[in-house]
């Protein structure tokens, strides 16, 4: 009997190897069809009218002129739960949708809709904590004292520190800016709904459409084979999903409704801002004794939740955190890769690096000295050594402020981070056919990360086959259900359920083969395209011949995470260490990336290539939010000013420098089981790069992104210039 456990290292053929992603060729040749590419016969094109005001009420939406336009087929005006025109809470809120014969007609019809508003005054300021509302979020650690109040105790622990450093740090709202915008194609056929959405949630997507369509979830058929990024913003059907389905129902025709780029930027997801005043108390030897964080920020109209500070160094003996939420008239917050962790990393790691600088201590030595204050001291210490070696820390490092002459100053900066990443709930089925073909089926999705490839790897390794000898079906809600892909939970979930199902299927096959090979099933294994007696390959059957014993009836077995037998193949909790090497032109304020090192623990590596690819991609996305990304809004009107790719800047290939990635491998790390890597890849860049800039120029640039204006402003107040 095959065991429902990860194979020992000598029995991993594809697991942990460098397997190229299976959908690479169809993607680079354009064969892969995304929601955006779906074209149905007789399809209508729908376009959304957005509100031009940031706050207020719609008093009238007059669609009569638009309706009269030739080629306009249907118009839906947004209504709130009571059937009234909705309240507007940001510039870009959905007002109405037109479905027409062509995109151009739909666009022009939008201009003929007359909207009357009662506009209010938008609240756009997220930097002033006096604008906070709602309950304060407070957490104290180590401030209990029989004789002192917590406030007095806090004063006392700071008074006892040898050095107290204080700083202000912040990062603005950024958007998800998915390469493929949100949206879907919908089609009604024989009373049932077919949807091709761009979604992170294939199995759960239909639930969001039952109310608006009056259908039951089983009548809604969802198909998403490929999607162009979501980063946490594509879990739900959204208003445009509901409207698209309604338009299809109303017109009896397929409807394509995808957001335009400016709409993607204004409405399809924002990462909350965070700003903080931080105080750190340290002993002369570098030991951190106390920390106080007052953080505030805004998630639009959604409550800001304080980032988990102190981040990673959760065992700092005494600390207080206070969080305050500011409501602003910006688009809705959605989960953004590693929700709140990039903010927590920036706030914590910048403050700690500033404390090290105040002591005149090397940053790496300081982090190492305090590694015992984390949950994973040994892991972080090892990772710091690896990262230091990769970046050439010893040769390059200097204390804060590059003293070499000339306008170009170079510096190193680091950060460490953590994430969960345990596998989510997932079910799947594996079928082995009498002709030897094998297929794994599950209603999960591949966001472009390599999920499809990992599923195939697990199936292939369990059956002793090559990756190209098995087949994976996914991306449809007709398949066994799997959770939405969020929080790095996918790889652990799908690899567990697939290992479980394929082991069950194999065991059923082994039972059939056992009499033929004259040994009990427990003594058989699948390896190298054969079913063989363990330790005696001469007693074996080729895979196809073994499957031939099934006669007419294929095997189908189920698997799940959590597994039915209670075996645990996935775990959570990882650590990573990043170090950045930057140059700063102190005359122009331009920051240039030289090198970026990302070292990560991810448990059992399923595919080295796609895992590394996550670290590369994460580094690029992180460099982007460290140096460029920022939602910019007009304070008077609330309009987003950079809702285009010209001024919503993303790093290009020339801007990212050299990236080096390293996965912690070996039994100590990998025996823990599978852990996700999507979030850990992108948490530390803001902090590490900000620290590197401070190290280069001798002064902290308090806010991300580290743009020339901010760098020059910081330099005007101090530093090497």
């Amino acid at each position, binding site marked *: 009997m095959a065991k429902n456990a990860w194979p020992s290292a000598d029995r991993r053929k594809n697991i942990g190897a460098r397997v190229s992603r299976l959908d690479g060729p169809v993607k680079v040749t354009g064969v892969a069809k995304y929601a955006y590419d779906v074209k149905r016969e007789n399809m209508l094109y729908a376009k959304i009218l957005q509100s031009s005001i940031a706050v207020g009420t719609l008093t009238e939406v007059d669609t009569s002129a638009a309706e009269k336009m030739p080629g306009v087929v249907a118009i839906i005006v947004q209504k709130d739960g009571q059937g009234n025109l909705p309240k507007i809470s940001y510039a870009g809120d959905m007002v109405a949708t037109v479905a027409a014969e062509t995109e151009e007609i739909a666009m022009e019809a939008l201009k003929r809709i007359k909207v009357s508003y009662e506009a209010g005054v938008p609240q756009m300021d997220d930097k002033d904590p006096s604008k906070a509302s709602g309950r304060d979020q407070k957490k104290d650690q180590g401030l209990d004292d029989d004789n002192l109040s917590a406030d007095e105790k806090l004063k006392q622990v700071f008074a006892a520190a040898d050095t107290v450093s204080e700083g202000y740090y912040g990062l603005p709202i950024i958007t998800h800016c998915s390469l493929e915008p949100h949206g879907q194609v919908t089609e009604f056929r024989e009373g049932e709904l077919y949807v091709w959405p761009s979604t992170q949630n294939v199995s759960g997507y239909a639930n969001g459409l039952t109310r608006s369509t009056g259908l039951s979830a089983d009548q809604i058929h969802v198909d998403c084979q490929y999607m162009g990024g979501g980063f946490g913003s594509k879990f739900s059907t959204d208003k445009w999903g509901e409207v698209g389905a309604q338009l299809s129902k109303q017109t009896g025709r397929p409807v394509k409704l995808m957001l335009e780029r400016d709409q993607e930027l204004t409405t399809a997801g924002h990462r909350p801002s965070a700003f903080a005043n931080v105080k750190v108390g340290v002993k002369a030897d570098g030991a951190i004794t106390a920390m106080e964080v007052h953080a505030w920020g805004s998630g639009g109209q959604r409550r800001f939740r304080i980032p988990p500070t102190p981040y990673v160094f959760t065992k700092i003996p005494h600390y207080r955190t206070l969080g305050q939420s500011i409501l602003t008239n910006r688009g809705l917050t959605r989960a953004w890769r590693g929700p709140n962790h990039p903010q927590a990393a920036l706030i914590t790691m910048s403050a700690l690096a500033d404390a090290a600088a105040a002591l005149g201590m090397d940053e790496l030595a300081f982090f190492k000295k305090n590694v015992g204050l984390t949950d994973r001291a040994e892991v972080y210490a090892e990772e710091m050594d690896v990262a230091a070696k990769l970046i050439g820390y010893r040769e390059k490092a200097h204390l804060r402020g590059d003293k070499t002459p000339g306008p170009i100053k170079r510096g190193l900066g680091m950060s460490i981070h953590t994430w969960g990443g345990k596998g989510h709930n997932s079910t799947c089925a594996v079928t082995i056919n009498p002709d030897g073909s094998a297929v794994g089926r599950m209603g999960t999705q591949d966001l472009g990360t390599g999920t499809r490839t990992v599923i195939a790897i697990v199936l292939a390794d369990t059956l002793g086959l090559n990756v190209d000898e098995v087949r994976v079906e996914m991306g449809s809600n007709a398949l066994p259900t799997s959770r939405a892909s969020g929080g790095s939970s996918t790889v652990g979930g799908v690899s567990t359920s697939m290992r479980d199902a394929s082991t069950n299927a194999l065991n059923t096959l082994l039972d059939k083969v056992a009499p033929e090979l004259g040994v009990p099933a427990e003594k058989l294994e699948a390896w190298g395209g054969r079913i063989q007696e363990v330790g005696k390959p001469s007693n074996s059957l080729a895979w196809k011949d073994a499957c031939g014993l099934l006669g007419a009836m294929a095997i189908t077995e189920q698997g799940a995470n959590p597994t039915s037998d209670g075996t645990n193949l996935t775990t959570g909790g990882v650590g990573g260490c990043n170090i950045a090497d930057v140059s700063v032109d102190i005359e122009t304020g*331009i920051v240039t990336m030289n090198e970026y090192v990302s070292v990560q623990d991810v448990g059992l590596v399923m595919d080295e290539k796609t895992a590394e690819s996550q670290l590369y991609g994460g580094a690029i996305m992180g460099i982007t939010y460290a140096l460029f990304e920022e939602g910019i809004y007009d*304070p*008077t009107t609330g309009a*987003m000013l950079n*809702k285009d790719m010209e001024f919503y800047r993303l790093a290009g290939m020339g801007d990212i420098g050299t990236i080096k990635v390293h996965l912690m491998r070996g039994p100590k790390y990998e025996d823990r089981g599978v852990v996700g890597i999507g979030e850990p890849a992108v948490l530390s860049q803001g902090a590490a790069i900000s620290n590197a800039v401070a190290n280069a120029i001798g002064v902290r640039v308090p806010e991300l992104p580290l743009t*020339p*204006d901010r760098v*020059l402003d910081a330099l005007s107040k101090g530093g090497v210039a």
Partner: protein
Amino acid sequence: MKTFEYASPNSLKDALGLLSDTWGETEILAGGTDLLTSIKQDVTAPRLVVSLKEVKGLSGIDSKGGNLSIGATTKLKDLIANEDVQKHFPGLVTAAKNIGSAQIINAGTVAGDLLQRPRCWYFRNGFGLFGMAGGKELVPDGDNRYHAIFGNGGKAKFVNPSSLAPLLIALGAGIDVQGPKKERSVKAADFFSTPKTESEREYALQANEIVTGISIPLSGKKNGIYEVRHRLGLDWPMVAAAVAFDESGGRIRNASVVLGHVAPTPWVAERATAVLNGQSRKAGAQAAGNAAAQGATPLSKNAYKVSQVKVAVRRAIEAV
């Protein structure tokens, strides 16, 4: 976007015949890298778009009569590849290359670069050239980090976006313009203007005129540019400086310093020019940089550009 008609005449005469004398009714299409964006952003909603693609005789680079003539529809990529341009006007090559996007360089034209509309994000987001809402000017209290630091006393606070224009001015180039009746040549220095009303454009061109080419005197002047760029490609500079001068016996003469992306027009830095003439490069560069920045009137969020001007001018002179 509003539906429009499209015409692709194959002679200059036919093209001119199609143009309205009112801005916005018709628009000229060259490479389209700016015009199409402008139409999609509703910056303009023409009834007719007149393409120059099939118009003969508008592209190509020639030297004649002591000038280098560059046809209006010459692609930026051909400007970069031209040996005469490389030899005489290395600064133009740098400026075009720095745009940093193969797609734009392959499609965009020289006249299109000069005539591209401002990138001001108020303008591009429906608040008009002066960034107005409800009778209020939004730019002064708004996000003006990329706006003008010179010539911003009136309503126009955007910056001229062209990377080629400053050096063309410094080199004393002329812009050839063909109207329905007459042909004229305008000095590049006089070609750009600051509109006083929303219905004006940012250059001395009538709506029914077509730019046919640019002539640059082959004066032998040394020239170069320096751009402060945040992102390496696919972006406009924050500040740029173009310089042209003669140099003999270690002294600079006949200097011209023109700034880009700092004012509603390319900005001739006269004080810098005065400081530079008669100096050695080494002594003059920093002094010219400081002089160029004098008189700046930064808005609430763009004082950093004043510092960048000093550096850009100095580095442009040093690098020539």
